[in-house]
């Protein structure tokens, strides 16, 4: 009697499924990627979220508007200042209060310093992901100078909690201008070294050029914002299109590329550091005098209604949606975080590339995992 030999050559049975994460150094946090492989080629990537979900949106519903600020620090900890700012701007918009010029300039300066330190960490960790250990040390060395500036003025290094509705918590430290100028002088000197080490490196080129290309239409339909979107030519800079704080009085270029591969996503971030330095240059010498905060009532009650405000973080567009029912706590708070939207494109980008390119593509999108889970 002859048995029928089972056909095992179907595609499905040849797929090999491995987990990357939740504790994998290249995921920069607790993120689990379930990768289906055929040989070395990636067939499908399924991100599993929620390992550090803390329910920040729900917690916000039981806190007053001043208390929400410190929670938003913990979403995207590399852009803590922008996360604070977006809630403050939304509250100020709802209450229709005019904030002093000094506050606007301070917020802009702090935002741009935050952007530089975030992109520095991206540069450092992306280099390390692709096998350049030295990048990590050089990136962190220069980032430390920015963190010192933050610590001197705000008291915190990463988790600054510097904004409050109506202004900022404390005035700038007297050393602030001096330190920022020192940092800019140092950073202008070392940025060409960054190019020598990583940007022009031949191994880095081999690993990134042409890897994970994203077209303009795809970037728009997936909602990819920030440098990742701008590398595909998607003009999505909130600072340009809907200026908040002091962005309407500074001149800067929106870094746009057409290629949209991993290398250009990287390049967009390095160029943005240069643009950020230009913005700081324009503002640092003319910080207006005046109060650093508007006197607010101890209990803030927003008028009944819905409010939306968006800002540009180093990773893309961050929006906050507040529904108020007139109480001292919000009825509902929702954050439109850039990382969550950017993650949606991962499967599309990685399909068909090798598993080593997965690390390259994942790194080039610059994820901060707590911002995805929040």
């Amino acid at each position, binding site marked *: 009697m002859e048995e029928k030999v089972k056909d095992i050559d179907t595609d499905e049975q040849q797929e090999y499924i491995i987990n990357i994460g939740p504790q994998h150094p290249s995921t920069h946090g607790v993120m689990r990627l379930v990768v289906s492989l055929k040989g070395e080629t990636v067939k499908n990537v399924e991100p599993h979220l929620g390992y550090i979900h803390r329910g920040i949106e729900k917690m916000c519903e039981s*806190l007053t508007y*001043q*208390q929400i*600020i*410190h*929670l938003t620090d913990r979403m995207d900890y590399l852009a803590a200042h922008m996360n604070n700012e977006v809630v403050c701007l939304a509250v100020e918009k709802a209450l229709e209060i005019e904030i002093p010029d000094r506050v606007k300039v301070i917020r802009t300066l702090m935002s741009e310093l935050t952007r530089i330190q975030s992109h520095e960490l991206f540069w450092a960790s992306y280099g390390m992901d692709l096998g350049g250990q*030295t990048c990590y040390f*050089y990136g962190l*060395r220069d980032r*430390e100078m920015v963190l*010192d500036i933050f*610590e*001197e*003025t*705000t*008291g*915190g290094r990463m*988790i600054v*909690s510097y904004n*409050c509705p109506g202004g900022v*918590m*404390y005035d700038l*430290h007297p050393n602030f201008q001096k330190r920022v100028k020192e940092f800019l002088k140092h950073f202008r000197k070392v940025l060409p*070294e960054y190019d*020598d*080490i*990583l940007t*022009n*490196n*031949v*191994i880095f080129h081999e690993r990134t050029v042409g890897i994970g290309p994203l077209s303009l239409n795809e970037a728009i339909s997936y909602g990819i914002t920030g440098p990742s979107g701008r590398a595909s030519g998607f003009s999505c800079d909130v600072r340009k299109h809907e200026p908040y704080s002091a962005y309407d009085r500074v001149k800067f270029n929106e870094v746009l590329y057409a290629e949209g591969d991993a290398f250009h996503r990287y390049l967009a971030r390095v160029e943005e550091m240069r643009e950020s330095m230009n913005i700081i240059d324009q503002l640092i010498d003319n910080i207006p005098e005046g109060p650093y905060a508007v006197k607010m009532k*101890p209990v803030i009650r927003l008028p009944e209604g819905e409010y939306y405000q968006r800002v540009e973080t180093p990773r893309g567009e961050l929006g906050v949606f507040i529904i108020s029912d007139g109480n001292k706590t919000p009825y509902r708070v929702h954050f439109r975080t850039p990382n969550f939207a950017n993650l949606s494109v991962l499967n599309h980008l990685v399909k068909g590339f090798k598993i080593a390119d997965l690390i390259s593509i994942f790194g080039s999108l610059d994820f901060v995992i707590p911002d995805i889970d929040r």
Partner: protein
Amino acid sequence: MRSIINYLKDIFLGVRSLLKGMKVTSRYFWSPRSIVTEKYPENRKTLVMLERSKGEVIMPHNDKNEHHCTGCGICQINCPNGSIEVISKIIDTEDGKKKKIIDKHIYKLGQCTFCGLCVKTCPSNALAFSTKFEHAVFNKALLIKVLNKPGSQLMKGVEQ
């Protein structure tokens, strides 16, 4: 022929880009002035923290063991996660009136998120941040601190 030339050119340019990067690293390797590493546990005695760093919340006392805290409880209301508990008691003053004073100002360092709201909102500036940052202890109970020192009093002139 052309492909061979391109191949050799790629090798040459590749090696050059590697050497360029190596030049930067070797320059830092041989220049001791560029060392930025702080030898932390060894330099504890000379380590100066920046004045505004948020180490922990303290209640400054003067030489006479007096503080500014009136026990109003605004810090407790403003704390987002209940790290502060103000326990007050009522005493009889010399002129026969009843007065509310602070008994214990309990601060749970273990759950503090250093948002700075208590220090900022205190109406009588009774709280401040110290720059002490070495908080590691073996017993969790040591992280629950009583900020007012035993036997301390409200400073005269601070409005109730």
